[in-house]
Protein backbone atom coordinates (compact mmCIF):
# COMPACT_ATOMS: atom_id res chain seq x y z
CA UNK A 1 0.00 0.00 0.00
CA UNK A 2 1.62 3.22 -1.08
CA UNK A 3 1.58 6.62 0.55
CA UNK A 4 -1.15 8.08 -1.64
CA UNK A 5 -3.52 5.21 -0.84
CA UNK A 6 -2.83 5.51 2.87
CA UNK A 7 -3.42 9.23 2.65
CA UNK A 8 -6.75 8.65 0.89
CA UNK A 9 -7.87 6.21 3.56
CA UNK A 10 -6.87 8.67 6.29
CA UNK A 11 -8.54 11.55 4.49
CA UNK A 12 -11.80 9.61 4.13
CA UNK A 13 -11.79 9.09 7.88
CA UNK A 14 -11.24 12.81 8.49
CA UNK A 15 -14.02 14.05 6.26
CA UNK A 16 -16.44 11.41 7.47
CA UNK A 17 -16.33 13.10 10.89
CA UNK A 18 -16.11 16.77 9.99
CA UNK A 19 -17.14 18.35 13.27
CA UNK A 20 -14.77 16.33 15.36
CA UNK A 21 -11.94 16.79 12.89
CA UNK A 22 -12.58 20.53 12.88
CA UNK A 23 -12.55 20.78 16.66
CA UNK A 24 -9.38 18.72 16.83
CA UNK A 25 -7.72 20.99 14.31
CA UNK A 26 -8.86 24.05 16.24
CA UNK A 27 -6.30 23.35 18.96
CA UNK A 28 -3.49 23.33 16.42
CA UNK A 29 -4.96 26.29 14.53
CA UNK A 30 -4.94 28.43 17.67
CA UNK A 31 -1.44 27.29 18.59
CA UNK A 32 0.01 28.08 15.18
CA UNK A 33 -1.95 31.31 14.98
CA UNK A 34 -0.47 32.40 18.31
CA UNK A 35 3.06 31.52 17.24
CA UNK A 36 2.81 33.43 13.96
CA UNK A 37 1.08 36.39 15.54
CA UNK A 38 3.36 36.84 18.54
CA UNK A 39 6.52 36.31 16.53
CA UNK A 40 5.38 38.79 13.93
CA UNK A 41 4.66 41.37 16.63
CA UNK A 42 8.08 40.76 18.21
CA UNK A 43 9.78 40.96 14.83
CA UNK A 44 7.81 44.07 13.96
CA UNK A 45 9.02 45.75 17.15
CA UNK A 46 12.60 44.81 16.37
CA UNK A 47 12.45 46.15 12.85
CA UNK A 48 10.69 49.31 14.04
CA UNK A 49 13.36 50.04 16.63
CA UNK A 50 16.17 49.28 14.23
CA UNK A 51 14.66 51.72 11.77
CA UNK A 52 14.24 54.39 14.43
CA UNK A 53 17.77 53.97 15.71
CA UNK A 54 19.29 54.22 12.25
CA UNK A 55 17.00 57.17 11.56
CA UNK A 56 18.64 59.15 14.37
CA UNK A 57 21.38 60.30 12.03
CA UNK A 58 24.43 58.69 10.54
CA UNK A 59 27.10 57.06 12.68
CA UNK A 60 26.40 58.86 15.90
CA UNK A 61 28.73 58.57 18.87
CA UNK A 62 27.24 59.59 22.18
CA UNK A 63 29.64 60.58 24.90
CA UNK A 64 28.27 60.62 28.43
CA UNK A 65 30.09 61.36 31.66
CA UNK A 66 30.92 58.51 34.05
CA UNK A 67 32.31 55.12 33.18
CA UNK A 68 29.93 52.25 32.66
CA UNK A 69 31.29 48.81 32.08
CA UNK A 70 28.56 47.61 29.81
CA UNK A 71 28.64 48.72 26.22
CA UNK A 72 25.54 50.09 24.60
CA UNK A 73 22.17 50.30 26.29
CA UNK A 74 20.21 53.34 27.19
CA UNK A 75 20.78 55.86 29.91
CA UNK A 76 17.81 57.61 31.35
CA UNK A 77 18.01 61.28 30.38
CA UNK A 78 18.35 62.41 33.97
CA UNK A 79 21.16 60.07 35.05
CA UNK A 80 23.23 61.68 37.78
CA UNK A 81 26.79 62.20 36.62
CA UNK A 82 29.92 61.36 38.51
CA UNK A 83 32.47 63.38 36.57
CA UNK A 84 31.50 66.26 34.44
CA UNK A 85 31.74 66.82 30.73
CA UNK A 86 32.06 70.45 29.84
CA UNK A 87 31.29 72.72 26.95
CA UNK A 88 35.04 73.10 26.53
CA UNK A 89 35.34 69.31 26.09
CA UNK A 90 33.02 69.55 23.13
CA UNK A 91 34.98 72.47 21.73
CA UNK A 92 38.21 70.52 22.08
CA UNK A 93 36.69 67.58 20.21
CA UNK A 94 35.39 69.87 17.52
CA UNK A 95 38.80 71.47 17.09
CA UNK A 96 41.08 68.48 17.34
CA UNK A 97 39.22 65.26 16.48
CA UNK A 98 39.45 65.56 12.72
CA UNK A 99 37.52 62.31 12.10
CA UNK A 100 34.44 63.88 13.63
CA UNK A 101 32.27 66.15 11.55
CA UNK A 102 30.44 67.39 14.61
CA UNK A 103 30.66 67.30 18.39
CA UNK A 104 27.50 68.82 19.77
CA UNK A 105 27.16 69.56 23.48
CA UNK A 106 23.76 68.95 25.03
CA UNK A 107 22.14 70.10 28.23
CA UNK A 108 18.69 68.81 28.85
CA UNK A 109 15.93 69.16 31.35
CA UNK A 110 12.25 69.59 31.74
CA UNK A 111 10.67 72.94 32.38
CA UNK A 112 7.66 75.09 31.98
CA UNK A 113 7.33 77.18 28.84
CA UNK A 114 4.82 79.98 29.08
CA UNK A 115 3.31 82.43 26.62
CA UNK A 116 0.84 84.94 27.99
CA UNK A 117 -1.57 82.83 30.06
CA UNK A 118 -0.83 79.51 28.34
CA UNK A 119 1.90 77.19 29.47
CA UNK A 120 3.20 73.73 28.84
CA UNK A 121 5.58 71.36 30.58
CA UNK A 122 8.10 70.31 28.02
CA UNK A 123 11.65 69.17 27.37
CA UNK A 124 14.21 71.96 27.07
CA UNK A 125 17.36 71.15 25.14
CA UNK A 126 20.42 73.36 25.05
CA UNK A 127 22.51 72.75 21.92
CA UNK A 128 24.65 74.35 19.27
CA UNK A 129 23.95 75.05 15.63
CA UNK A 130 25.16 71.62 14.48
CA UNK A 131 22.47 69.75 16.40
CA UNK A 132 20.08 70.28 13.54
CA UNK A 133 22.38 68.45 11.17
CA UNK A 134 23.44 65.68 13.55
CA UNK A 135 19.92 64.67 14.50
CA UNK A 136 18.25 65.25 11.15
CA UNK A 137 15.94 67.89 12.58
CA UNK A 138 15.18 70.98 10.60
CA UNK A 139 13.76 74.42 11.12
CA UNK A 140 10.49 75.10 9.37
CA UNK A 141 10.17 78.86 9.78
CA UNK A 142 12.63 81.37 11.20
CA UNK A 143 16.11 80.20 12.13
CA UNK A 144 17.83 77.74 14.43
CA UNK A 145 20.32 78.42 17.25
CA UNK A 146 23.53 79.91 15.79
CA UNK A 147 27.11 79.89 17.00
CA UNK A 148 26.77 83.60 17.74
CA UNK A 149 23.77 82.82 20.00
CA UNK A 150 25.88 80.24 21.83
CA UNK A 151 28.82 82.60 22.22
CA UNK A 152 26.65 85.43 23.52
CA UNK A 153 24.39 83.24 25.71
CA UNK A 154 21.50 84.70 23.76
CA UNK A 155 18.03 84.27 25.26
CA UNK A 156 16.48 82.88 22.12
CA UNK A 157 14.32 79.77 21.67
CA UNK A 158 13.31 77.52 18.79
CA UNK A 159 9.97 75.79 19.39
CA UNK A 160 9.04 72.26 18.52
CA UNK A 161 5.92 72.00 16.41
CA UNK A 162 3.65 70.82 19.21
CA UNK A 163 4.82 73.51 21.63
CA UNK A 164 4.17 76.14 19.00
CA UNK A 165 0.69 74.76 18.24
CA UNK A 166 -0.23 74.57 21.93
CA UNK A 167 0.97 78.05 22.88
CA UNK A 168 0.37 80.05 19.72
CA UNK A 169 -2.19 78.16 17.68
CA UNK A 170 -2.32 79.70 14.24
CA UNK A 171 -0.53 82.86 15.37
CA UNK A 172 3.11 83.33 14.25
CA UNK A 173 5.42 83.03 17.24
CA UNK A 174 8.45 84.60 15.56
CA UNK A 175 9.73 87.54 17.62
CA UNK A 176 7.32 86.79 20.49
CA UNK A 177 8.64 86.37 24.02
CA UNK A 178 8.07 83.16 26.00
CA UNK A 179 8.99 82.51 29.62
CA UNK A 180 11.29 79.60 30.39
CA UNK A 181 11.24 79.26 34.16
CA UNK A 182 11.66 82.95 35.01
CA UNK A 183 13.74 83.99 32.06
CA UNK A 184 12.43 85.76 29.00
CA UNK A 185 13.30 84.10 25.68
CA UNK A 186 12.62 85.45 22.23
CA UNK A 187 11.27 82.92 19.72
CA UNK A 188 13.37 82.85 16.55
CA UNK A 189 12.20 79.69 14.87
CA UNK A 190 9.80 76.76 14.69
CA UNK A 191 10.90 73.20 13.93
CA UNK A 192 9.55 71.05 11.16
CA UNK A 193 7.13 68.37 12.32
CA UNK A 194 8.93 65.09 13.09
CA UNK A 195 6.65 62.95 15.26
CA UNK A 196 7.51 60.21 17.73
CA UNK A 197 10.95 58.70 17.80
CA UNK A 198 11.58 55.79 20.19
CA UNK A 199 8.73 56.81 22.42
CA UNK A 200 9.93 60.39 22.65
CA UNK A 201 7.93 63.21 21.08
CA UNK A 202 10.48 65.22 19.13
CA UNK A 203 7.89 67.93 18.51
CA UNK A 204 7.35 68.55 22.21
CA UNK A 205 10.68 70.34 22.73
CA UNK A 206 12.13 73.81 23.09
CA UNK A 207 15.68 74.35 21.77
CA UNK A 208 17.94 77.04 23.24
CA UNK A 209 21.70 77.77 23.02
CA UNK A 210 23.72 75.36 25.16
CA UNK A 211 25.29 78.20 27.17
CA UNK A 212 21.89 79.67 27.96
CA UNK A 213 20.76 76.17 28.95
CA UNK A 214 23.60 75.85 31.44
CA UNK A 215 22.46 79.11 32.99
CA UNK A 216 18.82 78.03 32.98
CA UNK A 217 19.56 74.71 34.68
CA UNK A 218 22.25 76.32 36.83
CA UNK A 219 25.09 74.01 35.88
CA UNK A 220 28.54 74.35 34.34
CA UNK A 221 28.48 70.77 33.05
CA UNK A 222 26.82 69.32 30.01
CA UNK A 223 24.68 66.22 29.81
CA UNK A 224 26.24 64.58 26.78
CA UNK A 225 28.12 65.22 23.60
CA UNK A 226 26.71 63.91 20.36
CA UNK A 227 29.44 63.38 17.80
CA UNK A 228 29.25 62.01 14.30
CA UNK A 229 31.65 60.56 11.79
CA UNK A 230 30.87 60.67 8.09
CA UNK A 231 31.90 57.06 7.45
CA UNK A 232 30.96 53.97 9.44
CA UNK A 233 34.43 52.46 8.87
CA UNK A 234 35.97 55.33 10.81
CA UNK A 235 33.91 54.70 13.95
CA UNK A 236 36.61 52.78 15.82
CA UNK A 237 39.32 55.29 14.98
CA UNK A 238 37.01 58.14 15.92
CA UNK A 239 36.42 56.52 19.30
CA UNK A 240 40.21 56.36 19.70
CA UNK A 241 40.55 60.06 18.95
CA UNK A 242 37.80 61.01 21.38
CA UNK A 243 39.34 58.91 24.13
CA UNK A 244 42.75 60.42 23.41
CA UNK A 245 41.56 63.98 23.55
CA UNK A 246 39.20 63.64 26.49
CA UNK A 247 41.47 61.54 28.76
CA UNK A 248 44.21 64.14 28.29
CA UNK A 249 41.77 66.84 29.36
CA UNK A 250 40.47 64.72 32.27
CA UNK A 251 43.76 64.17 34.09
CA UNK A 252 44.42 60.96 32.20
CA UNK A 253 41.32 59.25 33.46
CA UNK A 254 38.74 57.65 31.20
CA UNK A 255 35.78 58.93 33.16
CA UNK A 256 33.31 58.95 30.32
CA UNK A 257 31.50 56.47 28.13
CA UNK A 258 31.28 56.42 24.36
CA UNK A 259 28.23 54.72 23.00
CA UNK A 260 27.89 53.94 19.31
CA UNK A 261 24.72 53.47 17.37
CA UNK A 262 25.89 50.02 16.39
CA UNK A 263 26.24 49.00 20.03
CA UNK A 264 22.78 50.36 20.86
CA UNK A 265 21.32 48.49 17.91
CA UNK A 266 23.02 45.27 18.92
CA UNK A 267 21.72 45.56 22.47
CA UNK A 268 18.17 46.29 21.37
CA UNK A 269 18.30 43.48 18.85
CA UNK A 270 19.36 41.06 21.53
CA UNK A 271 16.66 42.16 23.96
CA UNK A 272 13.93 42.03 21.35
CA UNK A 273 15.24 38.77 19.93
CA UNK A 274 14.92 37.19 23.36
CA UNK A 275 11.47 38.74 23.77
CA UNK A 276 10.34 37.30 20.44
CA UNK A 277 11.70 33.89 21.35
CA UNK A 278 9.91 33.97 24.70
CA UNK A 279 6.63 35.00 23.07
CA UNK A 280 7.05 32.31 20.43
CA UNK A 281 7.83 29.77 23.14
CA UNK A 282 4.70 30.62 25.09
CA UNK A 283 2.65 30.30 21.92
CA UNK A 284 4.46 27.02 21.25
CA UNK A 285 3.03 25.66 24.49
CA UNK A 286 -0.48 26.21 23.20
CA UNK A 287 0.53 24.32 20.07
CA UNK A 288 1.64 21.50 22.34
CA UNK A 289 -1.75 21.56 24.04
CA UNK A 290 -3.29 21.30 20.56
CA UNK A 291 -1.14 18.24 20.00
CA UNK A 292 -2.42 16.63 23.16
CA UNK A 293 -5.93 17.28 21.83
CA UNK A 294 -5.01 15.37 18.69
CA UNK A 295 -3.70 12.45 20.71
CA UNK A 296 -6.86 12.42 22.78
CA UNK A 297 -9.11 12.34 19.72
CA UNK A 298 -6.96 9.77 17.98
CA UNK A 299 -7.18 7.48 20.98
CA UNK A 300 -10.96 7.79 20.95
CA UNK A 301 -10.95 7.25 17.23
CA UNK A 302 -8.81 4.12 17.46
CA UNK A 303 -11.15 2.69 20.08
CA UNK A 304 -14.22 3.59 18.07
CA UNK A 305 -12.80 1.96 14.97
CA UNK A 306 -11.51 -1.17 16.63
CA UNK A 307 -13.82 -3.29 14.50
CA UNK A 308 -12.74 -1.49 11.35
CA UNK A 309 -9.13 -2.29 12.28
CA UNK A 310 -10.09 -5.94 12.74
CA UNK A 311 -11.86 -6.04 9.38
CA UNK A 312 -8.96 -4.37 7.59
CA UNK A 313 -6.54 -6.82 9.13
CA UNK A 314 -8.75 -9.78 8.23
CA UNK A 315 -8.66 -8.79 4.56
CA UNK A 316 -4.92 -8.36 4.50
CA UNK A 317 -3.85 -5.05 6.05
CA UNK A 318 -0.42 -5.33 7.63
CA UNK A 319 0.38 -3.73 10.98
CA UNK A 320 2.29 -0.98 9.24
CA UNK A 321 -0.68 -0.25 6.96
CA UNK A 322 -2.89 0.36 10.01
CA UNK A 323 -0.11 2.31 11.73
CA UNK A 324 0.36 4.49 8.65
CA UNK A 325 -3.39 5.06 8.33
CA UNK A 326 -3.76 6.48 11.82
CA UNK A 327 -0.43 8.30 11.84
CA UNK A 328 -1.22 10.02 8.57
CA UNK A 329 -4.66 10.85 9.89
CA UNK A 330 -3.08 12.59 12.89
CA UNK A 331 -0.50 14.32 10.72
CA UNK A 332 -3.10 15.46 8.22
CA UNK A 333 -5.19 16.92 11.03
CA UNK A 334 -2.24 18.77 12.51
CA UNK A 335 -0.78 19.87 9.19
CA UNK A 336 -4.16 21.12 7.98
CA UNK A 337 -4.57 22.92 11.29
CA UNK A 338 -1.07 24.32 10.77
CA UNK A 339 -1.86 25.63 7.30
CA UNK A 340 -5.13 27.22 8.43
CA UNK A 341 -3.37 28.68 11.47
CA UNK A 342 -0.63 30.11 9.27
CA UNK A 343 -3.15 31.63 6.88
CA UNK A 344 -5.08 33.22 9.76
CA UNK A 345 -1.89 34.29 11.54
CA UNK A 346 -0.43 35.94 8.46
CA UNK A 347 -3.76 37.55 7.65
CA UNK A 348 -4.22 39.00 11.13
CA UNK A 349 -0.57 40.06 11.30
CA UNK A 350 -1.02 42.02 8.10
CA UNK A 351 -4.27 43.54 9.33
CA UNK A 352 -3.02 44.66 12.76
CA UNK A 353 -0.94 47.63 11.54
CA UNK A 354 -3.91 48.81 9.49
CA UNK A 355 -6.11 49.13 12.57
CA UNK A 356 -3.56 49.61 15.35
CA UNK A 357 -0.93 51.94 13.93
CA UNK A 358 1.35 51.83 16.97
CA UNK A 359 1.76 48.07 16.66
CA UNK A 360 3.99 47.28 13.71
CA UNK A 361 4.16 43.62 12.68
CA UNK A 362 6.49 41.71 10.46
CA UNK A 363 5.62 38.22 9.21
CA UNK A 364 8.84 36.31 8.84
CA UNK A 365 9.32 33.27 6.64
CA UNK A 366 11.18 31.43 9.36
CA UNK A 367 8.26 31.67 11.77
CA UNK A 368 5.92 30.29 9.10
CA UNK A 369 8.23 27.40 8.29
CA UNK A 370 8.89 26.75 11.96
CA UNK A 371 5.19 26.78 12.83
CA UNK A 372 4.38 24.43 9.97
CA UNK A 373 7.22 22.07 10.76
CA UNK A 374 6.32 22.13 14.42
CA UNK A 375 2.64 21.42 13.77
CA UNK A 376 3.48 18.42 11.60
CA UNK A 377 5.95 17.26 14.23
CA UNK A 378 3.22 17.58 16.85
CA UNK A 379 0.99 15.38 14.69
CA UNK A 380 3.69 12.74 14.39
CA UNK A 381 4.65 12.88 18.04
CA UNK A 382 1.13 12.70 19.41
CA UNK A 383 -0.08 10.40 16.64
CA UNK A 384 2.49 7.64 17.12
CA UNK A 385 1.08 6.29 20.36
CA UNK A 386 -2.55 5.94 19.18
CA UNK A 387 -1.39 4.61 15.79
CA UNK A 388 0.79 1.97 17.43
CA UNK A 389 -2.09 1.03 19.65
CA UNK A 390 -4.26 0.58 16.57
CA UNK A 391 -1.65 -1.40 14.66
CA UNK A 392 -0.89 -3.88 17.42
CA UNK A 393 -4.49 -4.94 17.99
CA UNK A 394 -5.14 -8.61 17.77
CA UNK A 395 -7.39 -9.15 14.73
CA UNK A 396 -9.73 -11.59 16.49
CA UNK A 397 -10.18 -9.35 19.53
CA UNK A 398 -10.72 -6.38 17.25
CA UNK A 399 -13.37 -8.19 15.20
CA UNK A 400 -15.20 -9.20 18.37
CA UNK A 401 -15.22 -5.64 19.72
CA UNK A 402 -18.69 -4.16 20.03
Amino acid at each position, binding site marked *: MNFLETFKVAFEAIISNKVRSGLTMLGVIIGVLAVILLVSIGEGARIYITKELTGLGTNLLIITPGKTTTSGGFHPPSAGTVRKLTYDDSLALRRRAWLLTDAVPIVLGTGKVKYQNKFRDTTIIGTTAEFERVRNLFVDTGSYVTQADVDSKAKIAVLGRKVKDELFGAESPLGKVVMLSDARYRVVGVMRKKGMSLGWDVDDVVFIPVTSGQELFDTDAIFEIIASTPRAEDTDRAIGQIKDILTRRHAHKEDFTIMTQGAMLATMNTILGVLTAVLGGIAGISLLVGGIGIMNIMLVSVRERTREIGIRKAIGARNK*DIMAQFLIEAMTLSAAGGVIGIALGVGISLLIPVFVTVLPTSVSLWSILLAFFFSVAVGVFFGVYPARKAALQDPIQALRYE
Partner: protein
Amino acid sequence: MIQLTNITKTYRMGEVDICALCDVSLRVAPGDLIAIMGPSGSGKSTLMNVIGCLDRPTSGHYLFENKEISSMVDDDLAHVRNAKIGFVFQSFNLLSRFPAIKNVEMPLIYSGVPSRLRRERAIPVLEKVGLKERMFHTPGELSGGQQQRVAIARALVNNPPLLLADEPTGNLDSRSGAEILNIIVDLNKQGVTVMIVTHDKDVAARCKRTINLKDGWIVGDEATP
Protein backbone atom coordinates in the same frame (compact mmCIF):
# COMPACT_ATOMS: atom_id res chain seq x y z
CA MET B 1 -3.69 -27.88 0.30
CA ILE B 2 -4.07 -27.58 4.06
CA GLN B 3 -2.52 -29.79 6.66
CA LEU B 4 -3.11 -29.32 10.39
CA THR B 5 -1.04 -31.47 12.71
CA ASN B 6 -1.80 -31.66 16.45
CA ILE B 7 -3.16 -28.13 16.54
CA THR B 8 -4.09 -26.99 20.05
CA LYS B 9 -5.47 -23.63 21.09
CA THR B 10 -5.88 -22.96 24.78
CA TYR B 11 -7.25 -19.93 26.60
CA ARG B 12 -6.26 -19.21 30.13
CA MET B 13 -9.35 -18.57 32.25
CA GLY B 14 -8.22 -17.62 35.73
CA GLU B 15 -6.38 -20.63 37.07
CA VAL B 16 -7.37 -23.19 34.44
CA ASP B 17 -6.53 -23.57 30.77
CA ILE B 18 -9.52 -24.29 28.61
CA CYS B 19 -8.86 -25.83 25.30
CA ALA B 20 -10.80 -24.41 22.39
CA LEU B 21 -9.05 -26.77 19.98
CA CYS B 22 -7.50 -29.98 21.24
CA ASP B 23 -4.96 -31.91 19.22
CA VAL B 24 -6.70 -31.27 15.92
CA SER B 25 -5.21 -32.91 12.87
CA LEU B 26 -6.81 -32.39 9.51
CA ARG B 27 -6.09 -32.46 5.79
CA VAL B 28 -8.00 -30.48 3.21
CA ALA B 29 -7.58 -31.26 -0.46
CA PRO B 30 -8.01 -28.62 -3.18
CA GLY B 31 -11.58 -28.39 -4.45
CA ASP B 32 -13.09 -29.77 -1.27
CA LEU B 33 -16.36 -28.52 0.17
CA ILE B 34 -16.43 -29.10 3.89
CA ALA B 35 -19.14 -28.45 6.48
CA ILE B 36 -17.98 -27.84 10.06
CA MET B 37 -20.63 -28.75 12.62
CA GLY B 38 -20.86 -28.95 16.35
CA PRO B 39 -22.62 -27.38 19.31
CA SER B 40 -21.98 -23.80 20.35
CA GLY B 41 -18.60 -23.39 22.03
CA SER B 42 -17.18 -26.51 20.44
CA GLY B 43 -14.34 -24.61 18.73
CA LYS B 44 -15.70 -24.16 15.20
CA SER B 45 -14.88 -20.45 15.01
CA THR B 46 -11.50 -21.01 16.62
CA LEU B 47 -10.69 -23.60 13.96
CA MET B 48 -11.74 -21.23 11.17
CA ASN B 49 -9.68 -18.40 12.66
CA VAL B 50 -6.60 -20.60 12.88
CA ILE B 51 -7.03 -21.83 9.32
CA GLY B 52 -7.78 -18.26 8.23
CA CYS B 53 -4.49 -17.05 9.76
CA LEU B 54 -6.36 -14.62 12.00
CA ASP B 55 -5.35 -16.53 15.10
CA ARG B 56 -2.23 -18.43 16.03
CA PRO B 57 -2.49 -21.90 17.58
CA THR B 58 -0.88 -22.50 20.95
CA SER B 59 0.93 -25.52 19.55
CA GLY B 60 0.98 -27.76 16.50
CA HIS B 61 1.90 -27.32 12.87
CA TYR B 62 -0.11 -25.73 10.12
CA LEU B 63 0.93 -26.13 6.50
CA PHE B 64 -0.85 -24.03 3.88
CA GLU B 65 0.15 -24.86 0.31
CA ASN B 66 3.22 -26.51 1.84
CA LYS B 67 4.26 -23.41 3.73
CA GLU B 68 4.60 -23.48 7.50
CA ILE B 69 2.15 -20.90 8.81
CA SER B 70 2.94 -21.31 12.52
CA SER B 71 6.36 -19.72 12.12
CA MET B 72 5.29 -16.78 9.94
CA VAL B 73 5.58 -13.18 11.09
CA ASP B 74 2.49 -10.91 11.19
CA ASP B 75 3.19 -9.30 7.82
CA ASP B 76 3.42 -12.68 6.08
CA LEU B 77 0.16 -13.80 7.69
CA ALA B 78 -1.45 -10.58 6.43
CA HIS B 79 -0.25 -11.43 2.95
CA VAL B 80 -1.73 -14.95 3.14
CA ARG B 81 -5.06 -13.52 4.36
CA ASN B 82 -5.01 -11.00 1.58
CA ALA B 83 -4.08 -13.21 -1.35
CA LYS B 84 -4.97 -16.79 -0.43
CA ILE B 85 -8.00 -16.76 1.82
CA GLY B 86 -11.45 -15.26 1.56
CA PHE B 87 -13.29 -14.93 4.87
CA VAL B 88 -17.05 -14.57 5.24
CA PHE B 89 -18.41 -13.80 8.71
CA GLN B 90 -21.77 -14.33 10.30
CA SER B 91 -22.03 -10.60 11.01
CA PHE B 92 -20.92 -9.50 7.49
CA ASN B 93 -18.20 -7.17 8.86
CA LEU B 94 -18.52 -4.55 6.16
CA LEU B 95 -17.35 -0.97 6.70
CA SER B 96 -20.58 0.97 6.94
CA ARG B 97 -18.99 4.29 5.88
CA PHE B 98 -18.23 2.96 2.42
CA PRO B 99 -20.45 1.92 -0.51
CA ALA B 100 -20.50 -1.73 -1.52
CA ILE B 101 -18.00 -1.25 -4.32
CA LYS B 102 -15.45 0.33 -1.94
CA ASN B 103 -15.85 -2.55 0.47
CA VAL B 104 -15.19 -5.00 -2.33
CA GLU B 105 -12.17 -3.04 -3.53
CA MET B 106 -10.61 -2.88 -0.09
CA PRO B 107 -8.52 -6.10 -0.18
CA LEU B 108 -7.04 -4.87 -3.47
CA ILE B 109 -5.75 -1.73 -1.71
CA TYR B 110 -3.63 -3.95 0.47
CA SER B 111 -2.42 -5.98 -2.53
CA GLY B 112 -1.12 -2.78 -4.08
CA VAL B 113 -3.53 -2.74 -7.03
CA PRO B 114 -3.83 0.78 -8.45
CA SER B 115 -7.24 2.39 -7.95
CA ARG B 116 -8.40 2.31 -11.59
CA LEU B 117 -7.73 -1.42 -11.83
CA ARG B 118 -9.43 -2.01 -8.49
CA ARG B 119 -12.75 -0.78 -9.81
CA GLU B 120 -12.28 -2.80 -13.00
CA ARG B 121 -11.78 -5.96 -10.96
CA ALA B 122 -14.42 -5.31 -8.30
CA ILE B 123 -17.35 -4.72 -10.65
CA PRO B 124 -17.43 -8.21 -12.25
CA VAL B 125 -17.22 -9.82 -8.81
CA LEU B 126 -20.16 -7.78 -7.56
CA GLU B 127 -21.96 -8.75 -10.75
CA LYS B 128 -21.25 -12.41 -10.03
CA VAL B 129 -23.08 -12.15 -6.67
CA GLY B 130 -25.88 -10.22 -8.38
CA LEU B 131 -25.34 -6.80 -6.80
CA LYS B 132 -23.92 -4.71 -9.62
CA GLU B 133 -26.91 -2.32 -9.60
CA ARG B 134 -26.44 -1.66 -5.90
CA MET B 135 -22.73 -1.05 -5.96
CA PHE B 136 -22.98 2.53 -4.72
CA HIS B 137 -25.26 1.65 -1.81
CA THR B 138 -23.76 1.62 1.66
CA PRO B 139 -24.30 -1.49 3.83
CA GLY B 140 -27.01 0.38 5.76
CA GLU B 141 -29.03 0.65 2.56
CA LEU B 142 -28.82 -3.08 1.83
CA SER B 143 -30.69 -6.07 3.25
CA GLY B 144 -28.85 -8.72 5.26
CA GLY B 145 -28.70 -11.09 2.30
CA GLN B 146 -27.37 -8.32 0.08
CA GLN B 147 -24.77 -7.36 2.66
CA GLN B 148 -23.57 -10.94 2.87
CA ARG B 149 -23.30 -11.01 -0.91
CA VAL B 150 -21.10 -7.91 -0.76
CA ALA B 151 -19.02 -9.69 1.89
CA ILE B 152 -18.67 -12.71 -0.40
CA ALA B 153 -17.65 -10.47 -3.29
CA ARG B 154 -15.04 -8.88 -1.03
CA ALA B 155 -13.75 -12.35 -0.07
CA LEU B 156 -13.49 -13.35 -3.74
CA VAL B 157 -12.04 -10.22 -5.29
CA ASN B 158 -8.45 -11.48 -5.01
CA ASN B 159 -9.35 -14.93 -6.44
CA PRO B 160 -8.27 -16.82 -3.32
CA PRO B 161 -8.02 -20.62 -3.56
CA LEU B 162 -9.71 -20.98 -0.15
CA LEU B 163 -13.00 -19.58 1.11
CA LEU B 164 -13.86 -19.77 4.80
CA ALA B 165 -17.42 -19.03 5.87
CA ASP B 166 -18.27 -18.92 9.58
CA GLU B 167 -22.04 -19.37 9.86
CA PRO B 168 -22.63 -17.21 6.78
CA THR B 169 -26.37 -17.70 6.92
CA GLY B 170 -26.71 -17.38 10.70
CA ASN B 171 -28.09 -13.86 10.54
CA LEU B 172 -30.26 -14.35 7.47
CA ASP B 173 -33.82 -15.46 6.80
CA SER B 174 -34.09 -18.87 5.16
CA ARG B 175 -34.66 -17.55 1.65
CA SER B 176 -31.58 -15.26 1.61
CA GLY B 177 -29.69 -18.01 3.43
CA ALA B 178 -30.47 -20.45 0.64
CA GLU B 179 -29.35 -17.90 -1.99
CA ILE B 180 -26.06 -17.30 -0.18
CA LEU B 181 -25.52 -21.04 0.08
CA ASN B 182 -26.16 -21.47 -3.65
CA ILE B 183 -23.54 -18.86 -4.40
CA ILE B 184 -21.03 -20.63 -2.18
CA VAL B 185 -21.72 -24.08 -3.63
CA ASP B 186 -21.40 -22.60 -7.13
CA LEU B 187 -18.02 -21.18 -6.22
CA ASN B 188 -16.87 -24.60 -5.15
CA LYS B 189 -17.96 -25.96 -8.51
CA GLN B 190 -15.69 -23.34 -10.09
CA GLY B 191 -12.74 -24.76 -8.14
CA VAL B 192 -12.61 -22.78 -4.91
CA THR B 193 -11.95 -24.88 -1.81
CA VAL B 194 -14.67 -24.07 0.73
CA MET B 195 -15.05 -24.64 4.47
CA ILE B 196 -18.38 -23.63 5.91
CA VAL B 197 -19.52 -23.59 9.52
CA THR B 198 -23.18 -24.43 9.87
CA HIS B 199 -25.82 -25.82 12.22
CA ASP B 200 -28.03 -26.91 9.37
CA LYS B 201 -28.06 -30.62 8.40
CA ASP B 202 -29.41 -29.80 4.95
CA VAL B 203 -26.48 -27.51 4.33
CA ALA B 204 -24.11 -30.23 5.46
CA ALA B 205 -25.84 -32.62 3.11
CA ARG B 206 -24.92 -30.44 0.15
CA CYS B 207 -21.22 -30.51 1.17
CA LYS B 208 -18.78 -33.21 0.16
CA ARG B 209 -17.53 -33.78 3.68
CA THR B 210 -18.65 -33.01 7.24
CA ILE B 211 -16.39 -32.48 10.24
CA ASN B 212 -17.95 -32.63 13.70
CA LEU B 213 -16.41 -30.85 16.69
CA LYS B 214 -17.17 -31.21 20.37
CA ASP B 215 -15.33 -29.46 23.18
CA GLY B 216 -12.43 -28.73 20.89
CA TRP B 217 -12.03 -32.29 19.66
CA ILE B 218 -12.82 -33.65 16.23
CA VAL B 219 -15.46 -36.28 16.94
CA GLY B 220 -16.46 -37.07 13.40
CA ASP B 221 -15.08 -36.57 9.88
CA GLU B 222 -16.95 -38.28 7.09
CA ALA B 223 -17.68 -37.90 3.42
CA THR B 224 -21.27 -37.27 2.43
CA PRO B 225 -22.65 -40.44 0.86
